[in-house]
């Protein structure tokens, strides 16, 4: 396949395509959110025209209310897909996601399933300031009971969204606003939750990254290749389940690791990845694990400040060079 079923080869439309495909084959799938009929955020654009405004339903500004209702609807037999817009708006519904969706199966001894998908943008897209630039997966991962995917390409977005909708667990699907129009083929080979994508391959150092950071890692790897440093990028597009096997296999091969994260460093996904590598692949390491992440500040508004706190290609390349001792 070159492009998703409708031919979409951009990230946000690939999500919409995945939702549409699931809605066609499963009448239990429906879409809720603010302004989802016009698809203001991208991932729901065009769905109302095909499926009507009952299945693609605009909600009032009531995140706790409609996310909570979606939890109940999922328990009751539907498969709601909620577009929460910016993933930081999920904080308004945090109780519904963490305390309710993520705990229901466990607290009921396995009786209840919450096949809910929450889609939200994550990351800085330029001067959106601290409340619209969050990369929140660490909070959800630590909450427990939630699956999290963060695709960085149309291929990942299409397949992981489909997998999310088919999953019987609550899944949060994040997409980076700066990548909404990112182009790329959608291949025929499905990607499942729990899988990572490796590429480019290399023997000298492993770069672990997600979302926009995966893009930047790939371009940094291209630049480093010209200097004779063979960096391997593992795009950890699924964060729960965490694709440890793929990650550790790469680390065992290269013996060096740089983790890049667009979230604040403290208790970040980067920290989790670094800890896992140190614990399970210590004997294979030839250099200390390095974490490159946002310093512990809210994302600033001014473009220059924003750029200053978010790892870029040059910073990634610099830390990689330091790690390989070049």
């Amino acid at each position: 396949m070159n492009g998703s079923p409708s031919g979409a080869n951009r990230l946000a439309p690939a999500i919409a395509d995945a939702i549409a495909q699931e809605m066609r084959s499963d009448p239990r799938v429906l879409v809720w959110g603010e302004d989802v009929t016009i698809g203001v955020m991208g991932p729901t654009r065009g769905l109302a025209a095909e499926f009507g405004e009952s299945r693609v339903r605009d909600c009032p500004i009531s995140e706790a209310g409609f996310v909570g209702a979606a939890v109940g609807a999922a328990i009751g037999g539907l498969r709601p897909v909620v577009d929460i817009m910016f993933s930081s708006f999920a904080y308004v519904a945090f109780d519904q996601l963490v305390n309710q969706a993520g705990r229901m199966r466990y607290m009921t001894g396995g009786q209840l399933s919450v096949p809910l998908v929450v889609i939200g943008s994550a990351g800085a897209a330029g001067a959106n300031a601290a409340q619209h630039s969050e990369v929140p997966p660490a909070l959800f991962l630590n909450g427990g009971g939630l699956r999290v995917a963060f695709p960085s390409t149309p291929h990942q977005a299409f397949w992981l969204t489909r997998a999310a909708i088919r999953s019987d667990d609550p899944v949060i699907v994040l997409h980076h606003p700066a990548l909404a129009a990112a182009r790329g083929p959608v291949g025929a080979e499905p990607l499942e939750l729990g899988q990572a994508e490796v590429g480019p391959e290399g023997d000298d150092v492993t770069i672990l990254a997600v979302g926009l950071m995966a893009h930047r890692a790939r371009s940094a790897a291209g630049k480093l290749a010209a200097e004779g440093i063979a960096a391997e990028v593992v795009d950890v597009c699924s964060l729960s389940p965490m694709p440890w096997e793929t990650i550790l296999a790469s680390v065992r091969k290269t013996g060096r690791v740089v983790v890049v994260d667009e979230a604040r460093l403290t208790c970040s996904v980067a920290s989790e990845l670094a800890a896992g590598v140190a614990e399970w692949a210590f004997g294979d390491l030839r250099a200390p694990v390095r974490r490159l992440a946002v310093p512990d500040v809210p994302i600033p508004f001014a473009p220059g400040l924003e750029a200053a706190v978010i790892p870029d290609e040059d910073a990634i390349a610099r830390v990689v060079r330091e790690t390989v001792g070049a």
Partner: protein
Amino acid sequence: MSDSVLEQHGPEWLRVMLRIRFFEGSLADLFERGQLVGVVHLSIGQEAVAAGICSALEPGDQITTTHRGHHHMLARGLEPEPMLAEILGKATGYCRGKGGSMHVACFERGVTGANGIVGGGIPMALGLALAAQELGSGGIAVAFFGDGASSQGTFHETLNLAALWRAPAVFVCENNRYGEFTPTERAIAGPGVAARAAGYGIPGVAVDGHDVQAVHAAALEAVERARAGGGPSLLECVTTRVRGHHEGEENYAGTYREAPLGPDPIDLLDAALGQPGLRARLEAEERELVARALAAAQAAPDPDPATALEDVFA
């Protein structure tokens, strides 16, 4: 209330209300003797709300309830033994010992669950109602919650959404006149919980929650309306919390109770029924039933520690 409704439901109401009373009483005893893990919030004094509402429901309906929800579950037909086992943290509990008192659930029997988050179950009931509507199951959903919860955002958001989408739902506020240790008057602005329905254009009715007949009549109307596609209603059942907020709060004894106790709902029903000997007979049966359930639950095995890692994901 016509006498025929009382004749039809009265003895069952009395039975379930006594079951609740003994069930909760046995937990109070266990707590007193230091044999309970965790905290329990008892519903003694509120039995009529559970009996009156749940007897208006069908098997395919769902309820969500709160930290104080044993009475709703029993009235919905959950078995005392697996409930007690759950509250004691046993492997044979409804939730395999993973939920405890504040999270007893049995979806199959129409109890989606209780909740430790005040206001947490209200939107969930809306979702269950919408699922029933969408899937055409004919079911409705009831959210039970306290007066304190009616100040949560989820309450207001859910009422708005439910009204907007004409959800087959009934929102039952059990106003026991306290949220923890704060009297309702100090927590709720305006003319009261029922009046909050007006803002969403749905019926809001306050009834005497000690009187199972009054509760049932109001419930029937709201349930029928929901089932017929008429949309949601809010019912405020004014009742009395006889015990404290939770067991073991004697530190606070005498420091906060200002409202006088309301009438005992079991006495009220007994008097209305006027059937000499019925109460004594049911008391003996239910006391025995609860005692046997408790003995079995206490004898049940603890969960295998390995199961602590199960049931996180599908």
